[in-house]
């Protein structure tokens, strides 16, 4: 009786996808390794651009809440700090983890090139954009040439 069940079991499992589920686990989220992962730990991609009237700093900080971002401009030194935790959502277990928790503080020295009064900051779609207005000192001035 026991033997009979055993023989019947195997094809039945396959037919109903039972084995398939386990095969699925083996290849679970196997990737096409064509693109190497560019995971950055601890640091985040950043970019600074200079425009006519301001410097623009962009930092990629996906998943960071507004309240976890700190921006300070003190004596011409801009300091940006941010953090995020990556936790397994309640009721789930982790199968694969690549996203890293973030906690960083970065400083940029602008000296007297920037005017603290003209600083703006915006966090949108996981990108923090800080605009630093240039001080009068460094702004290009066009000097009209008078024809005498």
């Amino acid at each position: 009786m026991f033997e009979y069940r055993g023989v019947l079991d195997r094809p039945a499992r396959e037919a109903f996808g039972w084995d398939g589920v386990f095969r699925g686990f083996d290849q679970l989220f196997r990737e096409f390794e064509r693109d190497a992962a560019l995971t950055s730990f601890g640091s985040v991609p950043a970019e600074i651009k200079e425009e006519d009237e301001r410097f623009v700093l962009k930092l990629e900080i996906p998943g960071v809440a507004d309240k976890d971002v700190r921006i300070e401009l003190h004596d011409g030194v801009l300091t940006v700090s941010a953090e995020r935790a990556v936790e397994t959502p309640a009721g789930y277990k982790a199968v694969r983890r690549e996203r890293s928790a973030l906690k960083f503080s970065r400083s940029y020295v602008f000296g007297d090139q920037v005017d603290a009064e003209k600083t703006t900051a915006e966090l949108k779609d996981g990108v923090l954009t800080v605009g630093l207005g240039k001080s009068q000192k460094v702004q290009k001035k066009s000097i009209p040439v008078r024809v005498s």
Partner: protein
Amino acid sequence: MLGINKKNEAVATANETRPSSPSLDVYENDGEYLVVADLAGVAQGTAEVTLDHDRLVVSASGTRKFRRELIVPPSVEADKVSAEMKAGVLSVHLPKRAPYQPRQIQVRTA
């Protein structure tokens, strides 16, 4: 010499257009798989998620291009896959089909 230069140029161009591979987490519970991907700079509603048989493709372009492909288990119920985007983080819910349960059939006496 010229040949080498040309080759280098081609590599440079390819690198520029090649999408980044976003970091992602995969979580699981009895009901579903949950894929969470960092897509900084991708605006709400512009990320693309497609499921073709067992191949899940996440792609998006914002400040830069992202693309990643995953093989999902056959137990995923394709019709019920959903995705949402928040603060540059994409979450894709992949519900599992109800697991196969052996059924006991009662044999009645005629």
